[in-house]
């Protein structure tokens, strides 16, 4: 962790801005090149003389571009977030909320399950021996591919709406939590555990006073991964079942009708949501660390 930190930090604002600018420039270039043929064809069909500057201008303002220009995506985002009334089918915020609620539900289920599993694994040897290999194996199953049938099966059982999506999100996010928490709960040294035993602390007390606080940094690190995975799970769960609302449904609808700009806007909304969720966990981590009286970040780890 510390090595990584030194590798990534140190006066990075300027280089990051440079990379982001370069990405933007590359994006505009891609839009220019990607839309060139389409724009030239459209101009030729309209009977206009296809001069280079005309085509170049047209590549930036197409209805269904191959590569939408950044400002087109931004204006679509603005239109569908601010321009539409809240609760309308065409407001991106409505869709984002549908996705967010399922993500949070799945995240809650998954991380609670992950923590419970980790506690069981740390305390019961038979659980560890019989379950751990399957927990690892469960992650080689491409669960996202299974999403449609989970939704169909749960839907046939009368469960529709938020819960099936949350189940898939939970499946995706329990694993990092379990693995991280097993590591974290086992983090206290033998000496520390022995000290607790000399105080004649019960296993519950050792868990609450020693193992749990020691596991918190691991918990938050894995929660960050889990919340991002949970969002991916929800979005994919919205894809194949003809979901009416949600960012995934928005992606699929855009793909069916060739609405490229709508796809890109939904993607950016998803990215922003993901960044916000991870940021939120980071804030919770900082608050917890402060509440526990941790030293300032950096020295604690």
């Amino acid at each position, binding site marked *: 962790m510390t090595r990584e930190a030194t590798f990534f930090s140190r006066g990075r604002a300027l280089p*990051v801005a440079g990379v982001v600018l370069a990405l933007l420039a590359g994006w505009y270039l891609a839009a220019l090149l990607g839309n060139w043929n389409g724009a030239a064809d459209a101009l030729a069909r309209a009977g206009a003389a296809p001069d280079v500057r005309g085509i170049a201008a047209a590549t930036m303002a197409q209805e269904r571009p191959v590569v939408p220009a950044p400002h087109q995506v931004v204006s679509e985002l603005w239109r569908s977030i601010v321009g539409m009334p809240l609760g309308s089918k065409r407001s991106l915020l409505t869709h984002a909320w549908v996705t967010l609620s399922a993500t949070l539900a799945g995240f809650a289920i998954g991380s609670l399950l992950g923590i419970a599993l980790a506690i069981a694994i740390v305390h019961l040897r038979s659980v560890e021996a019989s379950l751990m290999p399957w927990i690892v194996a469960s992650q080689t199953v491409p669960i996202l591919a299974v999403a449609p*049938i989970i939704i169909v099966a749960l839907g046939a059982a009368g469960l529709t709406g938020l819960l099936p999506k949350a189940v898939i999100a939970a499946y995706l996010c329990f694993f990092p939590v379990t693995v991280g928490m097993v590591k974290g709960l086992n983090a206290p040294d033998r000496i520390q555990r022995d000290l607790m035993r000399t105080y004649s602390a019960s296993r519950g007390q050792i868990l609450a006073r020693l193992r749990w606080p020691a596991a918190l940094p691991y918990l938050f690190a894995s929660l960050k991964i889990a919340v991002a995975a949970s969002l991916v799970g929800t979005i994919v769960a919205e894809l194949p079942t003809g979901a009416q609302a949600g960012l995934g449904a928005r992606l699929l609808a855009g793909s069916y009708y060739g609405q490229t700009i709508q796809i890109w806007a939904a993607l950016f909304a998803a990215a922003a949501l993901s960044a916000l969720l991870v940021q939120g966990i980071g804030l919770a981590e900082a608050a917890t660390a402060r509440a526990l009286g941790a030293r300032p970040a950096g020295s604690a780890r």
Partner: protein
Amino acid sequence: MTRRAARIGLLTPAALIGGTALAIAAHRPGLAGAAGPGFWLAAILVWLAATLAARDLAALEPGHAAGRRLVRLAVPLLFGALVLVLWEVVVVGAGVPAVLMPPPSAVVARFATALPVLGADFVQTCLKSALPGYLIGCLSGLGVAILADRLPVLGRGLLPVANVASALPIVGIAPIMVMWFGFDWPSKAAVVAVMTFFPMLVQAGAGLAATGSIERDLMRTYAAGYSRTLLSLRLPMARPFLFTALKVNATLALIGAIVAEFFGTPIVGMGFRISIEAARLSLDMVWAEIALAALAGSAFYGLIALAERAVTGWHPSVRAG
């Protein structure tokens, strides 16, 4: 010790034989769908026997390495067999309709009869879509990481961006890639390449930074240049990190290829088959595809893990396990 050994010797065969008998009995015409309390009692007994056997087996500590490996293998196998048997027994015994949850036996039967279709899907999704994308993504991730290491300014700018990007829902770019590269496998390979790029970039970046300054100083005293140091010291030291990314990417690649097929495919491929068969409610075929995906994913993962063991035997995380 002897009492425990006796218990294991009694409970394990009891659980195995009882489970098999139950699974066969469940299919008898009088029982299927109308199992009485006696049947469920027997199921619970089998479950208890298997759980106790697993507990005793897990507590066993044979003196020699082969025995330990056997125990480590036997316990999860017993658990997996228990899950399958209970699944079969509950689904058949309670008469759960096959559109909801087909019993494992039906899935296996379907798997056996649909082998040509499954084979074609495997070639399309795993070999044509996932594998090229995986190779492109991992190699370019490694290449960019080395470039970022060579040019520190680029590294400082790129790696935070990559860190953020690796948490993004990248599968979402699938519709765009389908639009750019068409319905066939190149669009899937492109999705997989982008998905696998960022984990490799982040891990390779961390791995290249994992060399201590003492080792680097030693290389400098040998008058080794950048590429010599990279090849002889830093890439070998980065191997554990690289393999972490390779393993993470192995599952990501399969997921990316399958999910990208939801956005339009030629009429072959695992993702295509899953969505089509789920819509037709023939869930045994869907589960057969899932079994195939699980097998392929585990095999891919296992191969990389084996390679990791062979190449990084010196590392503590491998030595301990």
